[in-house]
């Protein structure tokens, strides 16, 4: 980890407003990651609310779907109608969901200091961090592994600077199964599979 990253981490640690979550800055266990996926009420990271979160642990070459965490959240505002067909969560489906802080509290406890894996993780993290900043004063300090980034690094060449990063393309190219999409656990599982496959092809990518 670079000095700059260490400095950022140290600053974040000081900014943390709730000592209960100090474990986020601990040393993570070796060979463990958490693959996460969120469904949100819209596609605007400034206003989107989290509707559901799935977090699937990965330990070595094993994806522990049996220990997956799945959370349904209750949004403060109405769900954008055009997003409902995608995630299939209607107003009544989330009516009994958790409050944002309860859900994030469970999520943080679950992931601890482990690195995060995801597909277009940036968006999910932006939405989570927006909520976290106002509540705990920090962004998630965990290292983030973007599987489409791993894929890009592998595919890109000077002759072919454009890489098709659509999930279906990546799965097909890597000969991975096309599981049904937009179930958060399945999406997290797919990201974890891409990670494991590329990790072996690249050698070590664990930071």
């Amino acid at each position: 980890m670079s000095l700059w990253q260490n400095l950022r981490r140290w600053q974040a640690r000081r900014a943390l407003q709730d000592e209960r979550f100090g474990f986020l800055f601990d040393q993570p266990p070796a060979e463990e990651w958490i693959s996460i996926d969120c469904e949100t009420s819209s596609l605007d990271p400034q206003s989107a609310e989290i509707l559901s979160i799935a977090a699937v642990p990965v330990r070595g070459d094993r994806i522990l779907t049996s220990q997956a965490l799945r959370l349904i959240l209750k949004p403060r505002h109405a769900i954008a109608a055009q997003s409902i067909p995608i995630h299939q969560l209607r107003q009544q489906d989330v009516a009994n969901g958790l409050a944002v802080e309860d859900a994030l509290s469970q999520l943080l406890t679950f992931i601890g200091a482990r690195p995060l894996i995801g597909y277009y993780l940036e968006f999910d993290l932006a939405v989570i961090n927006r909520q976290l900043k106002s509540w705990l004063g920090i962004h998630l300090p965990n290292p983030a592994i973007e599987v489409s980034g791993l894929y890009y690094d592998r595919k890109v060449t000077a002759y072919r600077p454009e890489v098709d990063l659509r999930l279906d393309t990546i799965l097909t190219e890597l000969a991975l199964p096309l599981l049904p999409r937009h179930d958060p656990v399945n999406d997290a599982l797919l990201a974890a599979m891409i990670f494991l496959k590329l990790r072996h092809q690249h050698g070590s990518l664990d930071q």
Partner: protein
Amino acid sequence: MTPFDFSHAPFDCLDPAERQRLAERVDVAYFPKNACLHEANSPVDTLYVVIKGMVSEHNEGETLAYYGPQDSFDSRAMLGGRAQHRLLAVEDTLVFCLPRELVLDLTQRNPVFGAFFYQDVAARFAVLANRPLQGQLQAMLMSRVESAYLSRALWLNAEDSVLDAARLMKKHHATCVLVHTQNGDGIFTRSELRDFVISEASAASTAVGPLARTPLITIAADAYLYHAQLLMAQHTIQRVVVTRDAEVIGILEQVELLSFLSNQSHIVLAQIERAESIVELMAANRSMDELIKLLHGNGVKVTLIADLLCELRRHLLGRAFTLLAPAEMLEHVCLLVLGSEGRGEQILKTDQDNALLIEDGYMHPELQAICERFSQTLLSFGYPPCPGGIMLNQPDWCCELSAMRSRLLGWVRSANAENVMRLAIWADARPVAGKAALLESVQLQSLPELDGAFLSRFALPVMQFDVPLSLFSRLVLDAGAQRDRLDIKKGGIFPLVHGIRSMAVKAGIRTSNTYRRVDELLARQLLPAELAQDLRETLVFLHGLRLQHGLNTLAQGRVPDNLIDPAALSTLERDLLKDALGVVKRFRQLIEHHFQLARIS
């Protein structure tokens, strides 16, 4: 919602609650190419189901099996908790991991699910070359332990000697005795006796008690038979002690268990003999289909299944004709089955090849109508009509003796390809109902004019199709729409059967079964012993492969053909196939030489 796919056997038979329990415990593992899933003899706590990729099973350098998407493995290791063989990822592979204790628990609760593993294990137990198949679940597996034959339990006391035990076993033809010991009841079997003999201790002065294995592995009399088989598999033992209300009532031997399953044929036979109507016969006909799957699924040898099934089918066809024809008519006609049915080598149903011989001068107004009804009945039993029209509802194949004789002689005199095939089918004729003696005078072997020139032309079709094996022992795939299949009948079974048939006709051997013909040819020293053995084994293997392929095709709801996909075979099967085709090639050369076919082809 779960990524696990419940639409494939055996998981499709789990109920929603069981699926939920399983779904909650499923993990996914990734194995890069060449990674080892487990080594031989390592403990196993997982049942794997392939999501994508392929895994191979190895034993001392030999590849035993491949597992592809949706295959679950390794059932036997999962049951025993210890790996038998090494498992490797052939390519990058993703698998679902199911915890062993949960799967074991589900096999106990859900008999259908449990029976799948029973069948899989039973299949693995069978000799490799027997080509067993994972059949569907049969009602017979759901029979109770008490319905099988149980050996009597013989008891000794701990202080009785090993000699006493051996004498008792000999007296009762038993394979084991039970012993009351200080640590509870135990069992002393032939293998303990063998180990004892090796130890060279004195049988008269050694007490049997300390040598007995404890605790007893027991099963309740009202448990399902497949539970007994599972138990034997789990403990790698050949027998279990059967109890009722905690009292030992007998011993179930693995041999008895398997023979119980094959003995179901007697029930089918009784069903046929008792049938008073075509409708009742129909039920027996269905039982036969089930029986084939059951026997093959349990690794019973193909020749045994064929013998059994041909006998049953002979009774079935005979009974059908007897039900349709008046008793008086049976005194004057003879119903024949021809071709593979006549040889007794047909396991799955095939085209109707049959004929009716009529005594010279016998007339009956209903005869034609009865033959027509018989053909229709067979059709409703699932025997398609013969494309060549060799059926008794055709005038050519339903005629008086003298007419048949002159027609046969006509074919012998102008032995073109078509007539030779008719004569070949006729050479395999076997009577199934009516006056069997009618056949004798018109059997191919009893016709005059079977000279060398005719016999050469008769044998010629052996050379008709190339054996799909290249000079360098590679399989040649040129059959099927995609030209990626191998026609096992044209390329393998037919040349063998017809070559042996030609030799049998030449030698005047009257039996129609190919294996019996080989035996006869060997007895008359017309075949070298080694070749005879090779021919028998090759035929068993090819018939087995065809049966397996046929059952698979039927299971997919298609009509069985003879086109094997070598890519779907295991390495071992492919190697055996090459060996088998090598034998066919050698035999073809022998026939070519023997009948001097080079002269006329």
